[in-house]
């Protein structure tokens, strides 16, 4: 019988219901037998952990950069949130790695060393407090797919900045105005020179210009060919090409045509970058993220919640894992809606009714420090701990008296909103207990999974206070993180702390804060800056203007695999680590 006729005969047989049922039963039993023997012997080459729990921990011994970096290898990372697009003009959620590697900047700022590290800028000059001149390197080209791989010129820098304001207004972007609203213009003088003219002096101007958003340099042709948005295309000249970007993650591959620096710069060696490929796997579940890291599938544990003392045990005995103590990079706030909490006595009453020492010793297991609007991570810039302790001094009698003087606001019934994830619910429960006991109010907590839609967006607010977090070290400058929470031209607006508040006292306070803010920005030297920043912080804290920061863990921990070398852990929480080109894999 010929093969074709056999199959014709086979398919030609009547496929009745009895045959279907019999077939179903047989297939079911057969599949059961097959599945019973179907184990996972994991013979693939990606298994790195040793079974049997006989692993040796290298915890506490950070890796040192060896003398000779090795080229090659694949850096395995987890992507913990889907991104909202790749355009550096305003997309800031979930794509820090991709943006960092496919774009170039004039320079980077390394917070731990307080150093400017030059990228595509060859040099810069600051002739006065209102102008910066950048000289661009020769030989920097866009990637081959971008504008035909043409050279990057000063005009590109000007164009990239010029589109930011319009992008944020019309296309939706989260790039904060604080980073760029001090700039009058960026003008190209010739192909390799651009001048940044300022509206006003800005002490942290070099830090701001080195930020991920919005100062990455894009190619005009690509943007214009894509309706003004580079969300799904690459328009950069960075060291890595994006070869995959979908719902399962991203892949970045080293671009051989990336320009060679004339010499080694800290973080940017002449022969870097060293790593060939960076794989980012989308993994949103926190338990899966931790398990994947402990199993050796990922090189850096970048869970949503920073590792603190309480969960350090998870890393004990994990083979090849380095756990490193770093300064805490997260701040936390009690948020008051300034349209409703207009009496400063009521706000003070809440803060003084909470026993912060008890909070530090219990919730923060003794590892805590007081925190102001300028984070303690900016050493010497904010108010000293002793002064903060006085401002936050627990005084239940005074608190109760202040609350009564303010007229028992909200009828003594407070609704608190807290993020349902992370430590915030624990914080809120602690505050609830303290306020009920020391103020005689009732507090009802509503956990939410959508902080923006529940807490940020609605106006008027349908809660009395909220508990939230903010990165306090993310940008290397206080104005874009911890301090911004209370600025009337920053997040302060969200909490109705505005210049045009219908409550005259609040409008006046907002004006005062903004004046102090501009004064500290315009400081000509560090000593003046510190004095002005402290004056600003003293005003916001002693008036208990919300959001009011509360104590945070003093230190936290990061974890990474020991095969990863030159990992700049000291700047974790900033943009610098992703941008640096001196990482390598052993």
């Amino acid at each position, binding site marked *: 019988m010929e093969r074709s006729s056999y199959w014709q005969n086979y398919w030609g047989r009547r496929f009745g*219901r009895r045959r*279907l*049922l*019999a077939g*179903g*039963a047989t297939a*079911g039993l057969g*599949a*059961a037998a097959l*599945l019973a023997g*179907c184990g*996972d012997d*994991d013979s693939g080459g*990606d*298994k790195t*952990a040793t*079974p049997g*729990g006989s*692993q040796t921990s290298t915890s506490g011994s950070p890796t040192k950069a060896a003398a000779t970096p090795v080229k090659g290898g694949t850096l*395995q990372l987890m992507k913990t949130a*889907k991104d*909202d*697009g790749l355009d550096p003009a305003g997309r800031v959620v979930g794509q820090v790695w991709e943006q960092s590697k496919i774009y170039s900047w004039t320079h980077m700022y390394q917070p731990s060393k307080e150093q400017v590290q030059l990228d595509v800028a060859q040099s810069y000059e600051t002739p006065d407090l209102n102008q910066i001149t950048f000289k661009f390197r020769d030989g920097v080209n866009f990637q081959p797919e971008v504008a035909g791989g043409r050279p990057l010129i000063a005009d590109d820098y000007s164009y990239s900045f010029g589109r930011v304001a319009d992008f*944020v*207004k*019309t*296309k*939706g*972007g*989260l790039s904060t105005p604080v980073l760029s609203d001090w700039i009058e213009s960026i003008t190209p003088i010739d192909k390799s020179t651009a001048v940044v003219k300022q509206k006003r002096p800005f002490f942290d101007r070099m830090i701001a210009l080195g930020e991920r958003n919005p100062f990455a340099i894009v190619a005009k042709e690509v943007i214009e060919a894509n309706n003004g*948005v580079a*969300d*799904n295309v690459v328009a950069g000249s960075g060291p890595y090409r994006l070869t995959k970007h979908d*719902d*399962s*993650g991203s892949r970045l591959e080293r671009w051989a045509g990336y320009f060679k620096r004339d010499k080694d710069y800290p973080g940017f060696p002449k022969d870097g970058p060293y790593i060939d490929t960076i*794989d980012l*796997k*989308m993994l*949103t*579940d926190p*338990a*899966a993220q931790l*398990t994947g890291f*402990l*199993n050796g*599938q990922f090189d850096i544990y970048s869970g949503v919640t920073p590792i603190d003392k309480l969960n350090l045990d998870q890393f004990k005995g994990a083979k090849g894992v380095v756990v490193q103590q770093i300064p805490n990079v997260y701040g936390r706030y009690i948020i008051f809606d300034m349209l409703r909490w207009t009496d400063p006595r009521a706000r003070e009453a809440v803060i003084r009714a909470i026993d912060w020492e008890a909070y530090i010793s219990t919730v923060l297991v003794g590892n805590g420090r007081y925190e102001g609007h300028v984070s303690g991570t900016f050493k010497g810039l904010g108010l000293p701990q002793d002064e903060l302790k006085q401002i936050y001094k627990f005084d239940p009698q005074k608190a109760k008296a202040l609350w009564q003087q303010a007229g028992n606001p909200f009828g003594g019934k407070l609704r608190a909103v807290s993020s349902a994830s992370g430590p915030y619910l624990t914080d809120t429960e602690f505050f609830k207990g303290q306020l009920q006991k020391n103020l005689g109010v009732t507090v009802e907590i509503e956990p939410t999974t*959508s902080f*923006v*839609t*529940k807490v*940020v*967006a*609605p106006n008027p607010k349908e809660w009395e206070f909220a508990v939230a977090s903010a990165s306090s070290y993310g940008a290397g400058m206080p104005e874009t993180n911890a301090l911004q929470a209370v600025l009337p031209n*920053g*997040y*302060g*607006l*969200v*909490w109705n702390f505005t210049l045009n508040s219908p409550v005259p006292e609040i409008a006046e306070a907002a004006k005062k804060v903004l004046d102090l803010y501009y004064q500290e920005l315009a400081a000509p030297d560090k000593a003046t800056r510190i004095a002005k920043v402290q004056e600003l912080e003293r005003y916001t804290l002693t008036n208990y203007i919300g959001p009011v920061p509360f104590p945070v863990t003093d230190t936290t921990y990061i974890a990474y695999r020991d095969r990863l070398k030159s990992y700049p852990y000291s700047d974790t929480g900033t943009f610098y680590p992703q941008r640096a080109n001196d990482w390598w894999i052993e």
Partner: protein
Amino acid sequence: MSNYVLRRLVLIPATLLVASLVLFWLLFSQPGNAAILRVGSLGSCDECVKNLEQRLGLDDPFLVQYAHWLGHAVQGDFGQSLQNGQDIRPRIRRALLPTVELAILTTLLSAVIGSAVGIISAVRPNSVVDYFLRFVSILGLSIPQFWLATLIVVLPQVWWGWTPLRRDYVDVTDNPMENLRLMIWPALALAAGSSAYVARIVRSSMLEALSSDYVRTARAKGLRERIVVLRHVFRPSLITAFTVIGLQFGFILGGSVIMESIFGIPGLGQLLLSGVIFQDYPVVLAVTMVFGAGFLLISLFVDVMYAYLDPRLRRQA
């Protein structure tokens, strides 16, 4: 029968229309929107929010927005993501395969495990084995699937330094075996509940069949007990089980949302979750419509097959 099928086919678009209207209204009624999520958290630019709302059509009245969406959706155009401007259709096409694969694998596992447990339970009713299997079935129904999935991911790592998580998602078309190694675990977690349900259905329908006259006749003929159970009891019981398994397919699709998130599978569930987080209503609507259409088609298929497999129903129809 063909009239019945035709009626059902006509009802599918009508059902989807009502479902889309309700869903659209629910999404519309939520506080905030994608524009606020993109720029509103800065709070510094009311004008930015308004501009973006205008550009995305979010400032139109409800019915205008819905009509606009529907006009495109009926042509298979689900529009673009509000989150990143990507076309939704290709994303759904890419995400469909992992989800359907997970659902099929789970259904197969449920059918096999559920049937096996149901048979054993039914042939030894009220024995220790039966009690044990019924206890396990109730356990399977009671345990939340997301919790079981987390245990499947975490515990092997704690005990043996191994985890079923994979570094990369491998498509079934690229490497079926590697894909199976990843997919089998979420499928098992999902199957725990549905197989328990199947087991209970198979057990009860088999017990009913075991006491029927034709089974007594089969035994009287001198047939071996194995033949009696498999051919005369289990096979007709499969008709009921088939209905349950088919309907479970729809619930399994829903359960895939959390499983895909835990195991890092780039399916429809992950797409839906990200759409919900970003209030990306075109994505949420598109994925929900795909889930809905899938569920309705499966229900129709089950009903048709039910009639096909049971001649009594065919005659009634």
